[in-house]
């Protein structure tokens, strides 16, 4: 069972209290953008086997969206952080690098 700490209310919530929202830090492309950019934004997810940054909602708690860094190959959680972040915070990146030296970093 997955347990994520909500960065807003501090609750250590288990999975049934949360709803998953897919890949985080997507760059949005709307009207006027190229077909390739729009397709990549809509459909082409990174889907890595390993470190993944993703959106979650504390659905049966404070109701807020937040972000999490998690490994899809082991389900290990590296940390959670507020949805207002445009990229993963430095302390979480450092923690992942220490644990996964082969990880190529956030891009």
């Amino acid at each position, binding site marked *: 069972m997955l347990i994520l700490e909500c960065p807003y209310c501090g609750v250590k919530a288990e999975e049934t209290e949360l709803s998953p929202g897919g890949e985080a830090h997507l760059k949005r492309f709307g009207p006027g953008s190229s077909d*390739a950019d729009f*397709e990549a934004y*809509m*459909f082409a*997810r990174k*889907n*890595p086997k390993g470190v*993944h940054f993703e959106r979650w909602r504390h659905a049966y708690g404070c109701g807020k969206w937040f972000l999490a860094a998690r490994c899809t190959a*082991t389900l290990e959680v590296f940390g959670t952080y507020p949805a207002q972040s445009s990229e993963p915070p430095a302390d979480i990146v450092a923690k992942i690098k220490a644990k996964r030296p082969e990880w190529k970093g956030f891009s």
Partner: protein
Amino acid sequence: MKRYSVFALAREAFNHHQGWERAWKSPTPKASYDAVIIGAGGHGLATAYYLGKNHGIRNVAIIEKGWLGGGNTGRNTTIIRSNYLQDPSAAIYEKARSLYETLSQDLNYNIMFSPRGLLMLAQTHHEVRGYLRTVHANNLQGVATEWITPERVKALVPIINIDGPRYPILGALYQARGGTARHDAVAWGYARACSEMGMDIIQQCEVTGVRSENGKVTGVETTKGFIGTRKLGIVVAGHSGQVAEMAGFRLPVESMALQALVSEPIKPCMDVVVMANTVHGYMSQSDKGEMVIGGGTDGFNNYTQRGSFHHIEETLRALVETFPMISRLKMLRQWGGIVDMTGDRSPIISKTPLGNCFINCGWGTGGFKAIPGSGWAMADLMARGEPGPLAAEFDMWRFREGRFIDESVAAGVAH
């Protein structure tokens, strides 16, 4: 290869069963092949089989990181149906279903195809309208399905409760020639036939890189060394994104866990397959007597082949109203597979940005039923370099162009 038959069985019975041959060889890889297929699941093996049978291409290797049939092909709940809404889906799934009818004879291997009939229950008025529409579409497509009343549902499935109260049964979409087959046997039967044609099935060999020159594939790096090839087929289901990245492109695919479970074996009580898409559950009874049960996918990206327990609980909780007798059953085993979900819930059978490299993926939660048809279409694509009518609409560029084959609206959870 010695053929399997009733005479072979009798001969071996007198021979203390000492004379059975190995069903397939375990060769060491050659330096290069005319075609290499990554992934010895049902789709990869069927692709190789039809490359040999339909196109005479037999200098082929199938490379598998684990054991053949150990991916989703050996983890699924074996439902076979072709009652899809969209024309391209109905065409390829019906091709597959009709090939299943004679696959045991074709492969000389008993895949235990059991066209026992399949019901998709309508438990809301929205579903009633949806399935009536599907029946009309199917009749135009040449797929034999019909709409049946709650009374007929009860006659076909005596253990069902049609009265609700939450989700009363309002009717069902019935495909009399839908059913099940033995999943392992499908992989094993194709593997034996491929090996007999002289193809190399290389197990315990992981592809770790794709090599190319001037935009064309030249071979694959593996844990058993470099293997050259003129054509490459990527058929790795949940790992499609990972292998596509090795080949230098990204796919509209996400990998998630899908779980299933079986009960303790009980006496025969249900001789059809029943799917209840509103409550996200479905059930059939195996020949061993176990009730085989599945539900919807877990919600987050996952490569661990195990899912979250609460999804199992949700599936059973929902099914108990419709099948009250299962509340007394002990559940024996539960497992997960990693399914490759596309944006429109339809598969991809396509050329790729890399020359001579082809991909077959995105079958997600429902590709077991498609194995023969998918292999047929993929072999055609790999042999000719261009898709035939079965594969044409399933190219990977449809997402860019908005040509979706939208089965997510049509089928809900369905497998």
